Every structure is written in C-alpha cells, then in structure tokens.
C-alpha cells in the first residue's frame, strides 16, 4: 500500500468537482424534501381523512424500502412510464422523495409536540387556524424539530453516496474511479471516508451551534 499524494494532487480539480456535485445534490434534495415533507405533514395533520391515509401510505412505503431500490425504480424503471431522467436529476428527485417521507414524520411529530395548552391559549384569545399555525405552532415547532432535522440532513448527505450506483458523478463514484485507475483502492477509499467524515462532523458541529443559539427559546414546561 502506498499513498501517492502527487497522484491525488493531479486529480484535485476532478475531486473538487465531485465534491461540488455531492454538495449540490445534497442541498437541492434537502430543500426539496424539507418543503415537500412539510406540506405532507400539514396535509396529514390538517387535511381530510383520505389525504392523511394516502399520504401516510406514501410515507410508510418510502420509509420501509431501501433508497437504492427507489433509485433503481426511478432511474431504470422511469423510462417505461415516460420519465427519462439523467443521473443527476434522478438522484436529486429520488433523494427528495425519500427525504420528504422522513421529514414529514419529523414535522408531524413537531406538530404534536407543541403543548396543546399553547394552542388552546391561542384559540381562547380568538386566533383563527392560519394564525395559530403561523404565530404559535411554527415558531415553537422550529426549536423542537431542529435536532431531528439536523440528523436527517446528515443522513441525506451520507445517502448521496448511494447515487454513485446510478452513475451520478459525486464523490464516491469519482474517488473510487480514481482509485481503480491508479490501482490504489484502499487509499482512495480511506480518502473518501475521510471526506465524508469531515463533512458530517462539520454539519454536526453546525447543528449543535444552531441548537445552542436557539436554546434560549426553550420551554419552561415540557
């Protein structure tokens, strides 16, 4: 085993491009799944019974099956129903749908976790539904769902690696390809692991900072 830094250096631009792809795919999916997941949660919580059940089925299915299978269905099966996507859009769409299922549960729990008494207090002073959601539920929820959301974001970051299987040119595909080319599998994979590990640690740290910043809004009662 030898670790030739010169080799790595020569492919640095490629590696950074791959890092960029990873980050772009991740952030795009994060935003999409956050938004979509939120609306699913709202629809289930405040919408009619049939909406709750059908969205619930979607959530259960996409949380109960492997992400890889979902990607395969989308990327390889999609064209058969008229949905022909390139690797990157497929990756983003797949991760967004997957992530949204999880985020919807996080937000649903968040809705439940706001103490009923706070909502009742709002009702008693005459607020209507939208006002209660915007002025009470949402602000209080944000603090409550923050840890779980940070966790989920990190999970989604790690899941971007799975996209390498459908040829999305992100970090895993790129670095392991370089490794194959230079016959340095293990070194390149260690490098890859280090990349992700650092990214995850950074995100975790940012999350903790965010949580402590917001902790002054913590409840006096639980």
């Amino acid at each position, binding site marked *: 085993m030898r670790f030739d830094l010169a080799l790595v250096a020569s492919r640095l631009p490629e590696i950074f491009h791959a890092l960029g792809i990873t980050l772009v795919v991740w952030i795009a999916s994060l935003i999409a799944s956050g938004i979509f997941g939120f609306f699913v949660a709202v629809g289930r919580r405040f919408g009619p019974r049939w909406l709750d059940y059908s969205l619930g089925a979607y959530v259960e299915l996409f949380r109960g099956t492997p992400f890889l299978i979902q990607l395969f*269905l989308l990327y390889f099966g999609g064209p058969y129903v008229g949905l022909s996507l390139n690797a990157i859009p497929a990756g983003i769409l797949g991760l967004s749908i997957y992530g949204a299922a999880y985020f919807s549960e996080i937000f649903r729990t968040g809705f439940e976790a706001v103490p009923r008494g706070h909502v009742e207090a709002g009702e008693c002073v005459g607020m209507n539904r939208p006002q209660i959601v915007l002025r009470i539920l949402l602000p209080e929820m944000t603090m409550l769902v923050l840890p779980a959301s940070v966790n989920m974001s990190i999970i989604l970051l790690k899941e971007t*690696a799975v996209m390498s299987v459908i040829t999305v040119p992100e970090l895993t595909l790129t670095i392991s390809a370089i490794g194959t080319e230079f016959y340095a599998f293990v070194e390149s994979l260690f490098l890859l692991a280090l990349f992700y590990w650092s990214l995850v640690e950074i995100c975790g740290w940012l999350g903790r900072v965010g949580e402590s910043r917001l902790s002054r809004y913590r409840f006096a009662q639980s």
Partner: protein
Amino acid sequence: MTFTLFGLLLEAAIYTVVISGISIVVGFVIGMGVAAARLSTHKWLAIPARVFVSFFRGVPLLVQLLLIYNLLPAIGVNVPSVVAAVVGLSLCTAAYQAENLRGGFASVPRGMLEAADMVGLSRFQQLVRIRAPIAFRLTLPALINEAILILKASSLVSVVGVVELTRMAQDLDTSLYKPLQLYSAAGLLYFVINRAVAAAGKYAERRMAWGRA
C-alpha cells in the same frame, strides 16, 4: 411476474434476512463492548471507542462496505464477499447500537439504583439484576428500529457482489428488462419484511411491559 421469478426474489429475500440477522446480532455484541468501553474511565478505552462510533456513523455505509471489501484482501484476509459484507454491516450497526445502549443505561432512573444501594446490592449485582434488564427494555424500541435500518441497508451489499434481494432483482433486470416489476416486487418484499420485524418488536415490547397498559 411469473411464479418462478417471484420465487427467486423470495429466496434472495430470505438470504437478505439471514445476512441482516447475523449482522444485527454480531453488531449488538460488538456494540455492547463499545458502549462499555465508551463509558469506561480508562482513557485508552474510552477514546478509541468514541472514534469508532464517530467514524462508523460519519461515513456512508456504502463507503464502509467498499473499504472493507477492498481492505481485507489487501491485508491478506481472503474471505468470500458475503463475509466482508457482514463484517461491514456489523461494524456499522455496532456503532449505532453502542449509542443506543449508552442512552438506555443512562436512562435508568437513578432512584432505582439508590434503592438497590440501600438494600445492599453490590455494584455488580445492581448491574446484572437492575440496570441491565431496565436498560434493555428502554433500548428495545431503538434496537428494533436499528434492525429495520439494517434490513434496508443490506441492499447496499449488492454493490460488493453479494446476491441478496437487490442484486437478484438487478441481475434479473439485466436479462429480462422488467425493472418496474422487478424492483417493485423487491421493494414490496423489503416492505413486508420490515413490517414483520416491526410487529415482532411490538410484541416483544408488550411482553416486557411489566404491567403497563
């Protein structure tokens, strides 16, 4: 979808369950060791344990699998790919289970241990008779959750050449060009297995409810 095709997938699904099951059990044992090391007062135990947990939770499972799959032959350990896969899965789940166990043990109410102190139970007796049963019960939901996660994660071992459910579907797709049917069927099988595990978990929780409604 013909009967034989589904039969093939079913067989592969059983293989998935076996691989996952072994990984969960091995991971649990390793996880207990890591949790104990993590809680130890000896720095030379606690710090490597922390690094272990941080690494195996911070690196994507796919990368871990690829790494171990390539690392083992490189250091002279030549094992079938399924063994490498199980090693990878076990180490990954061990890290998560270690954290779950740590949380479970920390959640044992202090008062129960004080009561044990007062009636004279030794540290070791407390660990075995009071802390372990209560911690296990507290950890159970997380354990079931982890089992389900491993079942889903096992789909990634297809990438290192293990012919479990996902790989079987892939292989069949290569010759038959029926991705929608194959992957939907595979997905369904995963879903059903996960539901079964969740139900088993609920049953276990009820058995250990100790009189709670």
